[in-house]
């Protein structure tokens, strides 16, 4: 049976030790959010439930459920959103096709997720028995490109593609939208500021238009109808975001398409810029502050460069190029810090590549240790325990090394490997972890068998979007 299933786009572990509860492996695939037991791979919950139950009733053996996703998206862009909302409440398919971003609170109690097309930030509470309970959802004006929680866990920090960074409370309190006093409706230009014949004529038209507007009934504005603060702004596309606490001080780091990494103070002083880390020759794609060395920052860019920074000083400590290790051109799309009893390593993934690079981080900088080849493109990974066992989600739809050539049928969703320290450095060795096997056997949701090229292309760009961020110079 040749069939395709959605890959896991995000992997997280909700570490609930402090609550005296078992850890939960959180994953997203297609439009669903999944919870697994990380010790045996048992699926604990799926969200949203109503759609999923309809699916399982309709299909005993994973018949295609997602007849709609790509079409849905197209519809959404043309139709009014109000209609879409109604459909959702009618327990039809939800208004999104992917959950591209998730973040888990440090106590493992909350999961925050971005649902793609509807731009909603959703907060879930993980119950004692590891079920998702949706506490709230807030629709942002632009789609988020990165999410983080403040070190105290009280606020969600959201970076978007228009360069704005918002803070919203994790659990919103009462919010009364401030009534905006009647805005001056007339044009701000006057015959004193514009002089040409054409401009003066336009000004007359604007005055007429303003009068008409003033007589029109006021429109209800329901955008951002919840407590929110714009805390940082770049005149660029934001690509990544970090929050970190060091020596009793909180910071927010933001990376953008114009090569900048900005180091700002944490809330409520994010308007104070402490520094910029400047050095990347092209767009910054990923930021990572290792848990075991919070004074260091590893950043990656769209030309395969890795930088190591003393980020508080804005000082480059070390710079290496992936091209030194691998042949070809690469864009870094993932940097993960994995801390285990075996070793502390930095793992680096590349856009549309099945290779994963392993680096040792010390005072001398970053040293490449080993490279492992997966069966498909690396999408995300997570260290599941302290013994150095890592789960990687691989792209089940496209051929390894390609972002647009599709497989005839999907392989494994999750692969596992072990980090070991030998005499000649750190090694990554593939393992057959039964947990991963169990998750793979059950699988995720399936794609319809008759996707057309346009639908495939939409799915490709929703998963691999760095290419679109590259600059095309013109004058």
């Amino acid at each position, binding site marked *: 049976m040749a069939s395709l299933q959605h890959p896991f786009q995000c992997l997280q572990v909700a570490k609930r030790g402090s609550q005296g509860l078992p850890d939960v492996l959180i994953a997203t695939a297609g439009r669903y959010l999944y919870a697994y037991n990380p010790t045996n791979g048992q699926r604990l919950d799926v969200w949203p439930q109503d759609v999923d139950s309809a699916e399982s009733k309709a299909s005993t053996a994973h018949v295609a459920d997602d007849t709609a996703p790509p079409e849905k998206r197209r519809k959404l862009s043309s139709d009014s959103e109000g209609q879409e909302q109604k459909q959702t409440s009618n327990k039809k398919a939800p208004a999104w096709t992917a959950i591209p971003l998730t973040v888990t609170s440090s106590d493992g109690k909350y999961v925050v997720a971005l649902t793609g097309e509807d731009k909603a930030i959703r907060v879930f509470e993980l119950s004692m028995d590891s079920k998702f309970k949706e506490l709230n959802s807030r629709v942002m004006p632009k789609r988020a490109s990165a999410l983080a929680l403040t070190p105290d866990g009280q606020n969600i920090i959201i970076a978007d593609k228009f360069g704005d960074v918002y803070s919203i409370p994790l659990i919103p309190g009462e919010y009364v939208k401030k009534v905006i006093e009647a805005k001056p409706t007339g044009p*701000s230009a006057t015959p*004193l500021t514009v002089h040409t014949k054409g401009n003066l004529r336009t000004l007359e038209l604007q005055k007429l238009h303003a009068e008409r507007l003033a007589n029109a009934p006021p429109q209800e504005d329901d955008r951002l109808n919840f407590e929110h603060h714009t805390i*940082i702004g770049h*005149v660029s596309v934001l690509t990544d975001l970090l929050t970190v606490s060091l020596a009793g001080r909180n910071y927010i780091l933001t990376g953008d398409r114009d090569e900048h990494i900005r180091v700002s103070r944490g809330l409520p002083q994010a308007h104070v810029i402490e520094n910029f880390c400047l050095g990347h020759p092209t767009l910054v794609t990923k930021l990572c502050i290792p848990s075991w060395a919070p004074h260091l920052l590893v950043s990656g860019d769209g030309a395969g460069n890795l930088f190591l920074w003393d980020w508080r000083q804005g000082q480059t400590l070390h710079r290496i190029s992936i091209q030194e290790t691998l042949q070809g051109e690469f864009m870094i799309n993932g940097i993960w810090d994995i801390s285990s009893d075996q070793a502390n390593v930095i793992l680096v993934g590349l856009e549309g590549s099945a290779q994963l690079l392993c680096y040792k981080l010390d005072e001398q900088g970053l040293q490449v240790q080993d490279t492992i080849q997966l069966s498909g493109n690396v999408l995300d990974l997570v260290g599941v325990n302290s013994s150095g066992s890592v789960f990687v989600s691989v792209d089940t739809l496209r051929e390894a090394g390609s972002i647009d050539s599709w497989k005839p049928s999907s392989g494994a969703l999750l692969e596992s490997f072990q980090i070991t320290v030998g005499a000649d450095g750190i090694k990554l060795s593939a393992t057959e972890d039964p947990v991963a096997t169990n998750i793979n056997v059950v699988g995720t949701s399936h794609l319809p068998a008759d996707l057309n090229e346009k639908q495939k292309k939409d799915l490709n760009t929703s998963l691999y979007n760095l290419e679109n961020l590259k600059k095309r110079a013109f004058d």
Partner: protein
Amino acid sequence: MSTPQPVKRQKREEYRRKLQDQQAADGEVKMPQKKFFRQRAHANVFSDHHLEYPISPAHMDWSSHYPAFVDPDPTHQTLSGTRRLLKDVEVVDIGCGFGGLLVGLAPLLPETLIVGLEIRTSVLDYVRSRIHALRLRQQQLKQGIVAPIEETERPAEAPAPEDEVGTTNALVPGNYENISGIRANTMKFLPNFFARHQLSKIFICFPDPHFKVRKHKARIVSESLNAEYAYAVRPGGKLYSITDVEEYHHWILRHFTVQVGEDVSMGSSKFLWERVEGEELENDPCVKVMSSETEESKKVTRNNGNKYVAVFRRKEDPEWV
């Protein structure tokens, strides 16, 4: 009629070539004429213009801009391997246009390096030619070769020349060696040129008003950009603004000072600035230059327009919380 553009371009190129030859020949120095450098007043600040900017302030090569201030020790180099200056650039005119403010400020702050940032190439070319000509004339004046100014190409009935500023025959303090202009998109790349607290003054003179509400995000004053200005300006430094659009003036005030009833519990760059008023403002010679010597301010005067000035002082960074 069918091909007005190429003819115009051809004329411009011819003119500029002539201008260069003339000045290279070390003869009589002519000021460049604006009509050959005019460019549409707006630029899209969000597009990827083919811009040149340094990787970081430590990479910036200022030596060609301020040859009189180059560090004599050739071993003192920038991160890009070019000669360093004896001092840092301290004053910035954001959107310097044809450079009137630069020329007006130069004798006022002869020992301070001043740079104008302008996104329009052609306008910047004018600024560079103008400064080059001014410097040449100052050299000639120093050497005792007095070269009287002739604006030959201007018809007799034309109004007072806009190029008046700096076309003086007198020697001025600093000899215009302390001013220069660079092409830059300030909204995106200010931190690439200037390090933390490097600047003592920023000028924003007659900024593009972007009248339409949906264009307001392209305005050069915003809460998020004010945070970047606060990063570049040292505590005690000042940001000067002037506009002829009353609504924009209020926009500036609104984006630099906390409004009544405004929720600033999660911080605001407004906390980093305080408005300068009263005697201090009146006695500031920079305000006078800003209000009278830029091309735009002269145009506003000619059209009997209003001028709205607002100056803000950079406060100390707040204590960490």
